[in-house]
């Protein structure tokens, strides 16, 4: 039965297929480069189902407790409670809560693919390298991580201070890799002890995920002297030894980003008596996260905003003061970094200077690979392949700037490596959009009566207590607050007709999918339109008021037309007979009334 569908049926089907919101992802998970199902696990937390919440988180990421603490949570910036009321759901803190309360090895998916006989070397055990390792092990490849430090975790370990991310959390979550069978070569520096060429020869593929661990120091006037360091070196030494050799009592940190704040707050904890933060940006333009700024202020960090370092002054071979000039603006009309200085001068006293003014990817290829801004390797943006066959890049070395992005690039590189090892095309049929952040087109109006319920905040240690040690200062949610916060979630999905209609649930996830498939195939099983009760309940609840029953009725007509006037459904033979009788003389009558 070749059915010719009428224009009207095709037209309304197209409207529904393109406009139905049923498969639009919520804003949070579309924005997350790893597409963590934030809406899903927040709902589960709100229902008190913490094991299920952890399983849901772990479907996408293996570091729930870590990300719950340090993720820059781009999901919260696009949360509907942010755009509507300026009170986003505390997605990250809820993830941490679920992880702290319920994560355990029994919930971990430790299945790995059949061994493929292929070997992959990954350089760096940070979030990008680790994610790539996880995904490649799951695909059945043998994976060895080369880590130059004696500890795993990369910047998570040596870039993020302990008071934000305790070692124990990281250690526990990284055991996942070992359990999957990932091998480590610790303390081996690629580019020094072993070359990239050696790796390329010994392995079937290589992923470079060694991060941006070279702290940048601008050229500043003044004699060469002691007491000056950069953020990367300072934080790494603290992370590994709990001490800093360079640190004195009066510290100036140069820079206004989150790393600068990490340095300032860490310096206080490591024994500094006075810490000043010197930034080019004005106070209201600081790039650092507001809650990090607030934490630093509470702890006594002095902000000197709108000042540019002109010259270091030294005494006895150690820095003793900084000469500053006021900074009128940081960027020029074209938005380029180009500070414009005024004519005001000032001097601040210090014995230690920490530059948190950027970091760079070090070349470990011996010049074999081209580098661009910040030392990032030149890669194909879609596949992360390089000019050298079998060598891929991930993480900050490929351009990510936050942990969750690094992980997404790790996953992307792993997808490419897997294809490469199977001899497949790196791009054919691949949905690149789903491999990184994208925008949700969800546009269902807010439910009438949705109120602005304020965000619930986590408990923190007092400023006095927290500057004494490197102990974690955010204490997270208690049960009551977590429930309240999770239940604030607006659950940005449209399932209205699917809640109402039993029939649709038998055939699809939403009308958009159903009619999209119909248009794609050019046909539909007759049982689908002939299962509609034509009750219009779906239309009644649909924000777009799509008339699904009209489409089904139109399809039925077209099917009858193609089937010589009869319904294609076998059981409808009875109705044919029924209808003939209902119009027959035997069962009908007309009696005209008289006075």
């Amino acid at each position: 039965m070749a059915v010719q569908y009428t224009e009207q049926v095709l037209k309304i089907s197209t409207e529904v297929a393109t406009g139905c919101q049923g498969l639009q992802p919520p804003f949070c998970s579309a924005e997350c480069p790893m597409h963590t199902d934030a809406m899903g696990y927040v709902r589960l937390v709100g229902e008190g189902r913490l094991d299920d919440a952890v399983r849901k988180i772990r479907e996408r990421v293996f570091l729930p407790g870590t990300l719950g603490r340090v993720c820059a949570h781009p999901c919260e910036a696009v949360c509907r409670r942010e755009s509507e009321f300026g009170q986003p759901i505390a997605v990250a803190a809820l993830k941490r809560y679920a992880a702290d309360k319920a994560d355990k090895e029994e919930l971990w998916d430790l299945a790995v693919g059949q061994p493929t006989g292929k070997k992959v070397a990954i350089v760096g055990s940070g979030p990008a390298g680790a994610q790539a390792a996880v995904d490649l092990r799951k695909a059945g490849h043998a994976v060895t991580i080369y880590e130059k430090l004696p500890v795993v975790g990369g910047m998570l370990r040596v870039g993020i201070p302990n008071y934000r991310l305790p070692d124990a959390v990281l250690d526990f979550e990284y055991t996942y890799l070992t359990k999957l069978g990932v091998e480590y070569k610790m303390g081996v520096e690629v580019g020094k002890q072993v070359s990239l060429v050696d790796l390329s020869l010994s392995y079937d593929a290589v992923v470079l995920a060694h991060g941006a661990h070279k702290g940048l120091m601008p050229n500043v006037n003044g004699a060469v002297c002691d007491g000056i360091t950069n953020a990367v070196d300072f934080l790494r030494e603290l992370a590994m030894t709990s001490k800093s050799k360079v640190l004195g009592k009066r510290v100036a940190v140069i820079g206004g980003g989150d790393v600068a704040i990490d340095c300032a707050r860490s310096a206080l904890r490591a024994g500094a008596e006075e810490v000043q933060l010197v930034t080019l940006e004005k106070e209201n333009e600081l790039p650092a996260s507001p809650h990090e700024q607030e934490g630093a202020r509470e702890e006594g960090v002095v902000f000197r905003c709108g000042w540019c370092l002109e010259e270091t002054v030294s005494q006895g071979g150690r820095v003793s003061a900084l000469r500053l000039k006021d900074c009128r603006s940081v960027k020029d009309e074209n938005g380029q970094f180009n500070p414009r200085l005024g004519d005001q001068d000032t001097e601040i006293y210090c014995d230690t200077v920490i530059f948190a003014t950027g970091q760079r990817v070090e070349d470990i290829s011996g010049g074999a690979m081209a580098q661009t801004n910040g030392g990032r390797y030149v890669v194909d943006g879609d596949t992360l392949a390089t000019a050298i066959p079998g060598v891929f890049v991930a993480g900050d070395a490929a351009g990510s700037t936050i942990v969750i992005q690094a992980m997404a690039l790790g996953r992307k590189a792993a997808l490419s490596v897997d294809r490469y090892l199977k001899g497949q095309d790196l791009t054919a049929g691949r949905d690149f959009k789903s491999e990184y952040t994208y925008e949700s087109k969800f546009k269902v109006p807010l439910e009438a009566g949705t109120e602005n319920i304020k965000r619930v905040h986590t408990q923190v240690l007092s400023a006095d207590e927290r500057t004494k040690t490197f102990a974690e200062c955010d204490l997270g949610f208690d049960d009551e607050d977590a429930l309240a916060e999770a239940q604030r979630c607006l659950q940005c999905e449209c399932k209205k007709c699917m809640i109402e209609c039993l029939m649709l649930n038998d055939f699809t996830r939403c009308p958009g999918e159903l009619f999209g498939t119909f248009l794609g195939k050019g046909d539909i099983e007759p049982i689908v339109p002939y299962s509609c009760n034509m009750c219009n309940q779906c239309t009644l609840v649909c924000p777009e008021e799509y008339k699904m029953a009209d489409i089904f009725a139109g399809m039925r007509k077209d099917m009858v037309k193609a089937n010589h006037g009869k319904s294609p459904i076998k059981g409808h033979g009875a109705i044919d007979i029924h209808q003939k009788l209902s119009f027959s003389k035997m069962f009908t009558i007309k009696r005209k009334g008289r006075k």
Partner: protein
Amino acid sequence: MPGCSLPSYSPENISKTVQYLKNTYPELSVIQKCCGKPTKALGQVDLLKQRFGSLVQDIKDCEIDEMIVACQNCLNMLRESKEFKTVSLWEIMPKIGLPKELRGKAAGSDAVISIHDSCPVRQETAIHDGVRWVMQELGYKTVEPDCTRERTRCCGFGGMIVPANPDLAKRVMERRIKDMPTEQIVVYCAACRSSMLMGGGKAWHLLDLLWGPVVTKASQPPENVLASPVKAWINRYKSKVVIKRQIT
């Protein structure tokens, strides 16, 4: 015009309703014929034209000023055709009133009856009001499910899905029964009544409550006549004979 399912269900209700209307409208004509809704639901466009056309001819033959219909599908079919002024039986009852002796007859009943509205007339407030007015006049205590009036749910019979997808139809019927706050249910469509019985409910047609004995908590509704084709067709024939005798 009683439609199809009502005469197949109950010739007694046809007889009493015809008499009731005749008291108000002495010149009452009666037509027992299908409107062709099932043909339409199947998508048989050409057959529908022919069948609905034969009904239109009957109406014209009877020189009718206004059609009173007891079936919600007939109402929609006739209104869509825009050929005749058409009104629902349930909507005119409050206007013409109930026979005196029936008013308050169920005031002593211990039954609390859930109201199920027919989904083809979900937008017809006057019909919903009429049904509730009748229940109140009779003295029955009623209760509304969450999904009621314009938000009512299908009984499971709609769209001719029973022969096409009986398993799904059964689930829709059972779901609708779950919506009902009480065991006893009143409907104003004989097909809805049949669905409600199949879904496990105790369902009465509004005319059962009007013309029949007072229903209590313990009352058992009449059997599901429509589930037996033989009984249904015999009833349909009996209804025809009743009409023939009453309109002379």
